[in-house]
């Protein structure tokens, strides 16, 4: 009897999680599709308060720019650190501490990455900027990339390292021409997952990239991004702005879901060693 109750409980719990998930996806796509007006939504600026029409092209560009800044910092930094952890310092005290710190950094709330970027970049430079937003997102992405790349490198069989050293390559040549190509699909998965995570974060951008109602591409100026735009537009009492928030939510969810699914598919793709 007890086991029947428990078994049905697990079924109920599983359904109970799936329902809100489907509700979010359905609501966002239904409300979002209604508001999408091609091509205005993607090419126009938001309307002044009280008026209708318009779009959020500037926020899409802004999201791409901040992500580009963040990945140009976090991707080389993260991959090279992971190469040390997996190839040169495997099992060392330094590697242990760095991994520990990266794991803890993954758990640090995203908003604190924003506070950090505020006090390191915004305060000395005297204003909000796309660059500071990139720095905040880079802090967020770094531990994800380090961990994913390290795991990817550890999966490369040791025979390949021995073979490379055996034919006389240096460790640099081994890593660059043998190990990295072998681990590339898994590394790309990690980077894309980090990008997907960063693309959806509003909290670190609130007081770094801030917001901008106009087209901006200068990295030293405040810039609009999709998550921050959704936040600001959802808490003001104008119907037109709220509608735009839903459309932006749909675009953002689509971007993030596509990133996550692509990342998982890329990870499934077999590297040549397996």
């Amino acid at each position, binding site marked *: 009897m007890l086991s029947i109750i*428990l078994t049905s*409980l*697990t*079924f109920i*719990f*599983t359904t109970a*999680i799936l329902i*809100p*998930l489907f509700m*979010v996806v359905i609501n*966002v796509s239904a409300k979002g599709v209604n508001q999408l007006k091609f091509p205005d939504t993607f090419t126009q600026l938001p309307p002044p308060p009280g008026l209708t029409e318009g779009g959020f092209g500037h926020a899409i560009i802004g999201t791409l720019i901040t992500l580009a800044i963040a990945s140009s910092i976090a991707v080389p*930094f993260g991959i*090279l*650190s992971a*190469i*040390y952890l997996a190839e*040169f*310092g495997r099992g060392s005290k*330094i590697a242990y501490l*760095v991994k*520990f*710190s*990266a*794991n*803890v950094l993954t*758990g*640090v*709330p*995203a*908003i604190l*990455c924003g*506070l*950090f970027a*505020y*006090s390191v970049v915004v305060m000395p430079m005297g204003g909000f900027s796309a660059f500071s937003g990139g720095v905040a997102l880079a*802090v967020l992405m*770094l531990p994800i990339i*380090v961990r994913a790349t390290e795991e990817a490198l550890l999966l490369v069989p040791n025979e390949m390292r021995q073979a490379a050293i055996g034919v006389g390559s*240096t*460790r*640099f*040549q081994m890593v660059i021409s043998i190990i990295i190509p072998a681990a590339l699909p898994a590394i790309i998965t990690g980077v894309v997952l980090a990008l*997907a995570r960063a693309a*959806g*974060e*509003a*909290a670190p951008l*609130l*007081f770094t990239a801030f917001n901008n109602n106009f087209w901006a591409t200068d990295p030293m100026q405040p810039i609009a991004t999709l*998550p921050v735009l*959704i936040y600001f537009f*959802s*808490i003001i009492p104008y119907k037109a702005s709220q509608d735009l*928030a*839903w459309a932006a939510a749909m675009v*953002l*969810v689509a971007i*993030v879901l596509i*990133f*996550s699914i692509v990342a998982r598919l890329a990870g499934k793709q077999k590297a040549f060693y397996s």
Partner: protein
Amino acid sequence: MTTFDDIQDKVPAPSLEKKISSDRVLDVGFWGLTLLLAISAGAVLIWVILQTANSSLPAIQQFGLGFLTTMTWNPVTNIYGVLPQIYGTLVTSFIALLIAIPVGVGVAVFLTEDFVPRYITTPIAFAIELIVAIPSVVLGLWGIFVLIPFLRPFFQFLNNTFGWIPIFGGGAPRGNNLLVVGLVLSLMIVPLIISITRSTFEVLPPSLRAGSLALGATRWETILKVLIPAGLSGIISSVMLALGRAMGETMVAAMMVGNANRIDISILQPGATITGLIASQFGEAGRLQVSALMYAGLVLMVLSLIVNILAELIIRRFQNIE
């Protein structure tokens, strides 16, 4: 006829030593670069902590530890304290855990214990992982415009029927309240608990399960008395990580908690969280207020470091046993 010696004379011998030394420089340089960057990557955490502490110094000097027990947040008189925010953060996280722990462990059991075939569990597991990918600001938007209107009658019902219990009491229930934030947070942390608990169950030695079943235990006796105790450290660390995530989640709290600077025993009333405070106040903050917000961030940092380091240590101890 050309001999080998002739050819060898004509072809200049490659300067072997020069090549080796440039390779060697590159090799050592690369090693040094990766070492330097690895150490810097490790130091980022310390840098983040120190920088936040440094920026909150003026507020620490001004308010000291009294900051943690003060109920006021007044930019006019420049008196700041975060007691209501600490309370709200703990209450919403507690509600989230209260729901997410049984649900998460239950679903993890459902997905690993072969109640239904793999071709059903695999897509379900994939769908649950996708919840993590939904940006929190989108969940906040959904919460404001869909979930709160939907739950309003339910809040009213709780208040009418169980109003004599203080946590459901207070005046008329509000849409923005601690309970709804806890609910959405539980949705956000459940996938984390599921995925870690699942992998814990999957790495348990098969002999445990086989031994228990051979002794005549039923499936649920095996799950409750053998598998869950054996995987307890994994479950606990997943709960710690989930707690850390719930405390640090910003947008859902900022958009739905109501940002009311007060402590109300009723979870159907608006409250505040540390993250919501930082997100909603930072825009128009003056110098001392920015410092006070940094101090609030530091409090959050300490809370999240404690749970994350505990989780990490538990996971590592568990892995060493494996």
